[in-house]
Every structure is written in structure tokens, then in C-alpha cells.
């Protein structure tokens, strides 16, 4: 394996990464945002689109994060953040919430990951040499949502090793489900042929991004620079 020294070049900010995924959301989509980075997707608001936020603890149609002092102590999203009620919101119990997930009602789930492979597998629940795992609702969402989008750093923040792999090394969360992936180096589509680099971070060449990547990237003719929110 080649060495992967930490690059000094500026990479994409987490909010920009999540904005970019959120720009892909379509009007009327039901969206489930995983704990951590993916929740930043909700900061991107396109007034031309209605996005319905689903949280696996049984909220359909919750509103923005509650400002300090406006928290309702009975209303949190799956990340445990207090959110605001929004007109049209409905509450169901946990079995009904996952009935909703399993029957394919979620248009997109956005999750973090440790690894994504070029065949669309991803791993985000279990690290070897550590007993057990934290699966939460990720396997249900990954197996059953219409689309899985991933937001993660392109390389391991600790040692710089690549995370876009030929095959996942960690135990996977679901096989062959990732459709789109944003990292701090760009936007990728997972195709039948592998990772397609759709947009690159400003200042990063495809070759430099490939150098940070184990899997072979497909570089299309219409590769463009990363699109930030307007």
C-alpha cells in the first residue's frame, strides 16, 4: 500500500459536503439523516422544494433544530437533538417507524461511514478488535431506503489511509446500496463500473484525488468543480 501523507491542501468543509448532497434531494422526498455529519444536510434549505424529515424514533416531518430555550423535552431527532415541531408532523411508534423504513418509504438516507467500496458496499457500524458494534437503525435504513448517500472524510483522519476501497475491510452495513458519496475531496457516484468522480474539490486534480483513493476512479469528460450552495 502506498503511503498517504496528510495533504496540506485545503479540503471541503463538512457543511459544504452536506449542502452538496442536500442539493440532490428532490421535491417531496422523505429524507432520513444519520447521526453526526449527515444532520448538517438539514441546514441546506431550498425554498422551491418540500423535504420531509423522517427520524427512526418515529417522527415524520420534523422541523429545524430547536433554538436554545425553545426545546420541547419530548421532541428529539434520531441524533438526540431537540427539534421544532412543524405543521404536518406526525408521530408513530418504533415498530411503525421501521415499518415505514422497511417498506421503502424513505427516499434517501444519508449516513456517515468508515469505508465505502466500489461495488456500493459500506461499513459504518463495527470496528474489528472491538467487541460488539453500534448498529442502531443503520442496517434497516441501508437495506430498505430507496437511496443511500454517504458523507465522510475521504481518508481516515487518524492515519490518512484511504476509505474508498475496492472491497470493504470492515464488516459491512449493507451490500451494494451506496448511490452517491461526498467526501472532503469531491462528489462521487457509485456506478456499475465503480466510483465515478462527478465533482472535485477546488484545487484538487483527479490524479491527486486518485492518489488518496484505493479504488480506481472513473474520471468522466464532464468532470466539474464542486458545486457550493448559491
Amino acid at each position, binding site marked *: 500500500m502506498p503511503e498517504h501523507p496528510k495533504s496540506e491542501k485545503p479540503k471541503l468543509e463538512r457543511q459544504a459536503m452536506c449542502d452538496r448532497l442536500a442539493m440532490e434531494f428532490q421535491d417531496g422526498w422523505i429524507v432520513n439523516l444519520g447521526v453526526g455529519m449527515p444532520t448538517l444536510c438539514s441546514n441546506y434549505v431550498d425554498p422551491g422544494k418540500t423535504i420531509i424529515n423522517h*427520524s*427512526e*424514533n418515529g417522527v415524520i416531518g420534523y422541523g429545524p433544530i430547536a433554538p436554545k430555550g425553545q426545546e420541547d423535552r*419530548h421532541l*428529539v431527532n434520531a441524533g438526540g437533538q431537540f427539534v421544532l415541531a412543524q405543521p404536518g408532523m406526525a*408521530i408513530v411508534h*418504533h*415498530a411503525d417507524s421501521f415499518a415505514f423504513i422497511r417498506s421503502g418509504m424513505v427516499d434517501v438516507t444519508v449516513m456517515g461511514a468508515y469505508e465505502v467500496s466500489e461495488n456500493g458496499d459500506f461499513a459504518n457500524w463495527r470496528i474489528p478488535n472491538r467487541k*460488539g458494534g453500534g448498529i442502531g437503525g443503520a442496517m*434497516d435504513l441501508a437495506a430498505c431506503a430507496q437511496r443511500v448517500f454517504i458523507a465522510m472524510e475521504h481518508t481516515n483522519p487518524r492515519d490518512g489511509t484511504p476509505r474508498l476501497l475496492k472491497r470493504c475491510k470492515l464488516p459491512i452495513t449493507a451490500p451494494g446500496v451506496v448511490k452517491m458519496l461526498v467526501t472532503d475531496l469531491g462528489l462521487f457516484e457509485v456506478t456499475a463500473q465503480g466510483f465515478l468522480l462527478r465533482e472535485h474539490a477546488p484545487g484538487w486534480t483527479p490524479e491527486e484525488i486518485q492518489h488518496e483513493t484505493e479504488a480506481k476512479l472513473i474520471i468522466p469528460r464532464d468532470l466539474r468543480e464542486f458545486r457550493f450552495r448559491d
Partner: protein
Amino acid sequence: MKSKVYQTFDQAVSDIPNDVTIMFPGFSGIGVPRNLIAALHRQGAKGLTGISNNAGTLDAKAPDVGTLIEAGQVKKMYCAFTSPTHPSRVTAFVRMYNNNEIEAETVPQGTMAERIRAAGAGIGAFYTPTSVGTELAEGKEHRVINGRTYVLEYPLHADYAFIRAWKADTFGNLQFRLTQRNFNPIMAMAAKTTIVEVENDVVPMGELDPDAIHLPGVYVHRIVRIPPAPQGIWE
């Protein structure tokens, strides 16, 4: 019919023997039956099997299943999180699990919810697409139905469910508030004996709209209203 209303949490859990299975609802600290858990901690029943989304947090002021685990009352956990979500969060469960002092089965959250629902619905087993192709499906029976692969999962029954509700009537009809609902209704349906702590009020029968009941009172056996702090735990 004997009244379901108990005066104290200690009375409501006093007869729980060792070696039973108990369901503990709650999600992100909401809808957690903290008062009943604290009472069971005082009561001391041991050898328990717990069914819960997580296996406790690090907040010492807010009793949860982790309180019972730390006290050595729990033998086995079924939960969706068996390792810390962050390496620094080493709960009592994680420490004991790593030292093989407690057993655990990692269950995907939706599969856990459906296994609990199956127990309350008299279903013998069901096929779910969740976990197919992963380590958690290894050794489980697979079946292809209409071109899609499923794994067979079995119900999770319990002897007791501890429940946290918003409002009750004296028959045990329950209402929950917002995301307090989470696992509460399905756990109450899956357990032989359901014990409830109530936040807001216990009202006479007839005061709750029959169309606005989240759990019918036939599933509820004991009801305790949470007293004001500091006696009651309101976290």
C-alpha cells in the same frame, strides 16, 4: 377488578424475581422509565435479561438500564448498540462486555422493534430484508421471496415491560407525548406484566378520548404517577 394504581415505584416492582426478562423503552433519553429502573435498582433483582435500544449512558443523574448493569443485576442484553458510539464513552456495559462479564446480542434497531412487535402480535417468526449480506445475518435462515433475500427473525418476549407515559386513565389506557412514544407501546404489548410511570396525570376512566389512546389499558397492569422532584425523577 383490582385497582391498577400503585402508590410507589417500590411497591410496583417489589415482586419481580431474579432471572426474568425486562423490556426498557426509551430513545435518546426520552420515554425512559427512570423511576421504575431506580426502584428495581433498590429492589436488587439479579440475573436479568434486558431488551433495550441502548445499554445505558454515562449520565449518573439519569437512571437507565446502565444503572442495573453497573450494579451487576443484568446477565444479558439485547440492544442495537454494543460498543460505544464514541471511543471515549466507555459505559459500565462496554467495560463489562469487553471483560466478558455480561452477554449481549446486537440487534438492528428495526429488527428489534419488529421482533418485539411480533411477540405482542402472536407471530411465530418473520422474514426481514434487514442485515442480509452482513455479519449479523450469518447463521440465520435465508429465503428469497419475489427475488429479494430475507432473513428469518424470531419474536422477543418479556416477563415485564417498564413503561414511561404522558397520561393514563385508571384502566391503564395510555397516551405518550411526541418522541416519548418510541418503543413504549410495542414493549407493553410484548410483556406479560406491564408497569407504567406516568408524567402528567392519572385520570378517571372516560376522560381519555377512545380515538386518542396509544396503548389500550388491557396491556397495562400497574400504574404509578411520578411524584414531584426530588422524589420523582423527571430527567
